[in-house]
């Protein structure tokens, strides 16, 4: 079976434009071989080359005193003290999860875990950010079940707890769900490994599972939109094997405790091709591969297939020459494949042999730094005019605000997500101090007194209405969530999910979102140390809403000093930090009750945001506060109800702002935190707020078994809890 001739159709099928192909011809000075065409196509795919996003991502701040490794490696690294670093990153697996939810989500977890342990860090936690379509569609239910089971199936088996995340629903995801997974690991600061080849003559070693025909062209698939009618390309489903990955994790960490290793990288998208090329690129060397040595699952695989396979649970590493036997012994011990498949060479090129012949020889630079990079045209979308206006007159005030509160609490986006996270082992590793369901998760770092607080956030509706402010709000909220546990935000990773970059309106959204994130990070002093871009999230030309997912990692010096969960003491004063304005734009309430997605998202004043965060953190650090809870989707009404769920203790509250009652209860003004504090400490907290310049009002007291917001709402806590606890099952899963 010979290679197909290089035709126009074949070039197109590889997602390469005429111009790009012309560049390949010029670079090689000849026609590429079939294998070379495959290599160019995956390396120049949007997924691997970031060709539409690179020029924009540069605008993100990526340095800071804690940063040990910024973007450009498999994951970002920040210093967390005591000689340790946190290694973290987020990845999307949107397209594969839409096609086969279980395996797509499972292999997504597998991929991000490898990104973390490839750097020498033992993963200690995952968080998942999920977006599904209309809950009324049977397919949504099927996808939710499959994705959640897939994340659970992989993460649980690996023994990495999934400690938090988000899960929401909107019809814009009917044809493109989002599955973004964040992972963090911890390593000694002086034992961080990089994806770098070095040392001419050093062996290039393949470890893990055998290579099969799975996922060939996964990277190009992630760079194309789906066509109407079909449920996506059918040839690329990869099946995950978490058991093998667990062995791979242990074997890699064992290897990393020796001094055999020079560089290592997982084989993710574009498999052997991207791992070898990227390692060579970072080390400014070349790599020569002999494909006859690659462990195969099926006989007769062509060099093209071997180079492009996306079989899971594989890593490529460069070891010191002469230490091959030690490396082999470790991987054999763990029953894994291990084979020397090549050498580091001085000439900066990738040379691939198969059956004795050279089947590809390409310079490294044009595949990495020199890959195409586009400043694609951007244009402000027309819809923005239409959705900007929101006239208060259009929004009728509900007659029964208590009933509205119950309805909101039970709506899919606000309801309890226990059905999801109870399928995740969130305690394995015995580090999880604050379990899923809080503003952020909290993990202790063994061997120290420290804790890591983790939160992921993103509000697609805000980003739809105003991409820049929506993105900034996401940064603010994720940071605020971490602060609600008393932690200091240290760094950010993101996952940017968008439609086709070839559409100028999408490109505009993207550029605005990057600016919004950059602004938020600058204002809060946070570096973006890693991230991921997922374009082409559209079906039949209908794109998803622009959806950046922001993850913030925060550090708590003393993990035992974290806040309580919910109201816990009868009689405690309830304080509100920040201020409630008449802002209904983009709220969950407008959408759920009035079917409206309009108006501008809430304003964001950075001075106020910082003052609120500072006050909260300082008050927690001094032990003045029992719980602190961020006020976000669903507004103050929902935030207060959420505070009652733990203990069942209610509250009586009086709100005095002279604004529309629905805005008062359900508006989503930014920069607000609800606190309850022991009576004796209320004055000190108020004084702290004054010093910081944060508005702080005593709005009521904890107590009773009802949530009373004077003149507006008077409902039993048990009714709130019931609506909230059963909402997901009732409205999404229909059980």
């Amino acid at each position: 079976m010979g290679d197909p001739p290089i035709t126009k159709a074949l070039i197109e099928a590889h997602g390469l434009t005429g111009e790009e192909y012309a560049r390949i011809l010029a670079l090689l000075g000849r026609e590429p071989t079939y294998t070379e065409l495959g290599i160019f196509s995956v390396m120049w795919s949007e997924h691997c080359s970031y060709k539409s996003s690179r020029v924009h991502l540069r605008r993100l701040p990526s340095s800071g005193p804690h940063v040990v490794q910024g973007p450009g490696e498999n994951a970002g690294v920040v210093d967390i003290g005591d000689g340790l670093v946190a290694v973290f990153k987020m990845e999307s697996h949107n397209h594969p999860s839409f096609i086969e939810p279980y395996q797509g989500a499972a292999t997504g977890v597998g991929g991000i875990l490898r990104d973390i342990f490839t750097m020498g860090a033992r993963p200690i936690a995952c968080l998942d950010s999920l977006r599904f379509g209309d809950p009324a569609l049977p397919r949504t239910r099927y996808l939710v079940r499959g994705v959640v089971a897939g994340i659970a199936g992989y993460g649980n088996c690996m023994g990495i707890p999934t400690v938090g995340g988000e899960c929401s629903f909107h019809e814009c995801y009917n044809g493109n769900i989002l599955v973004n997974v964040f992972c963090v690991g911890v390593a000694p600061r002086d034992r961080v490994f990089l994806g770098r080849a070095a040392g001419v003559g050093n062996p290039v070693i393949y470890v893990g599972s055998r290579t099969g025909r799975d996922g060939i062209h996964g990277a190009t698939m992630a760079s194309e939109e789906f066509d109407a009618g079909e449920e996506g390309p059918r040839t690329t489903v990869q099946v995950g094997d978490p058991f093998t990955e667990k062995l791979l994790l242990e074997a890699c960490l064992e290897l990393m405790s020796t001094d055999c290793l020079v560089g290592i990288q997982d084989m993710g998208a574009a498999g052997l091709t991207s791992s070898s090329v990227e390692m060579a690129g970072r080390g400014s060397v070349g790599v020569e591969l002999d494909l006859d040595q690659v462990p195969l699952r099926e006989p007769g695989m062509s060099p093209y297939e071997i180079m492009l396979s996306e079989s899971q649970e594989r890593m490529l590493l460069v070891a010191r020459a002469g230490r091959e036997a030690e490396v082999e012994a470790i991987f054999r011990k763990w029953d894994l494949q291990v084979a020397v498949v090549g050498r580091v060479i001085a000439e900066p090129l990738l040379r691939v042999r198969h059956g004795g012949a050279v089947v590809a020889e390409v310079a490294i630079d044009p595949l990495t730094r020199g890959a195409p990079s586009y400043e694609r045209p951007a244009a402000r979308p027309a819809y923005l005019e239409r959705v900007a206006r929101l006239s208060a007159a259009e929004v009728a005030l509900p007659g029964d605000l208590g009933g509205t509160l119950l309805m909101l609490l039970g709506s899919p986006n606000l309801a309890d997500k226990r059905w999801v996270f109870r399928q995740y082992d969130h305690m394995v590793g015995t580090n999880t101090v604050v379990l899923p369901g809080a503003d952020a998760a909290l993990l202790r770092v063994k061997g120290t007194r420290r804790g890591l607080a983790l939160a992921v956030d993103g509000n697609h509706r805000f980003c739809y209405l105003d991409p820049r402010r929506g993105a900034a709000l996401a940064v603010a909220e994720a940071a605020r969530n971490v602060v609600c546990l008393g932690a200091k935000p240290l760094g950010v990773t993101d996952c940017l999910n968008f439609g086709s970059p070839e559409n100028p309106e999408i490109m505009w959204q993207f550029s605005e979102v990057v600016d919004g994130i950059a602004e938020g990070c600058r204002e809060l002093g946070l570096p973006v140390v890693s991230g991921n871009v997922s374009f082409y999230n559209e079906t039949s030309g209908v794109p998803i809403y622009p959806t950046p997912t922001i993850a913030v990692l925060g550090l708590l010096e003393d993990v035992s000093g974290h806040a309580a969960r919910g109201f816990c003491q009868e009689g405690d004063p309830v304080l509100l930090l920040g201020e409630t304005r008449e802002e209904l734009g983009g709220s969950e309430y407008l959408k759920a009750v009035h079917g409206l997605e309009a108006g501008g998202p809430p304003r964001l004043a950075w001075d106020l945001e910082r003052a609120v965060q500072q006050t909260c953190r300082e008050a927690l650090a001094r032990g003045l506060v029992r719980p602190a809870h961020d006020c976000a989707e669903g507004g103050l009404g929902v935030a207060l109800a959420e505070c009652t769920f733990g203990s069942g203790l209610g509250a009586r509250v009086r709100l005095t702002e002279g604004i529309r009652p629905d805005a008062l209860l359900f508006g989503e003004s930014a920069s607000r935190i609800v606190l309850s504090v022991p009576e004796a400490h209320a004055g000190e907290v108020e004084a702290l707020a004054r010093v910081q310049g944060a508005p702080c009002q005593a709005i009521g007291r904890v107590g009773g078994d009802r949530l009373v917001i004077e003149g507006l709402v008077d409902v039993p806590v048990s009714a709130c809890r019931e609506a909230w606890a059963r909402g997901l099952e009732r409205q999404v899963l229909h059980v």
Partner: protein
Amino acid sequence: MVIARVYVTPKKGVLDPQGKAVLQALQALGYGEVEEVRVGKFMELRLGELPEAEARSRLAEMCEKLLANPLIEDYRVEVERAR
């Protein structure tokens, strides 16, 4: 009454982690003669009274929709009329 047996197996070329683990376990147990294992599902369904042809076509539907995952699995159905 109709009894149907449905056999679901991983598609050729698709990774079968279970099969791989069972193969290694058998070999470690001394069954070196075993060269390959694929692990799938076996389902027995009891259906009410209905013509065989209809049963077959209904079963094929059930497999496509629920019993098998056609993206990664093959299936086979046997139908038998009982009593």
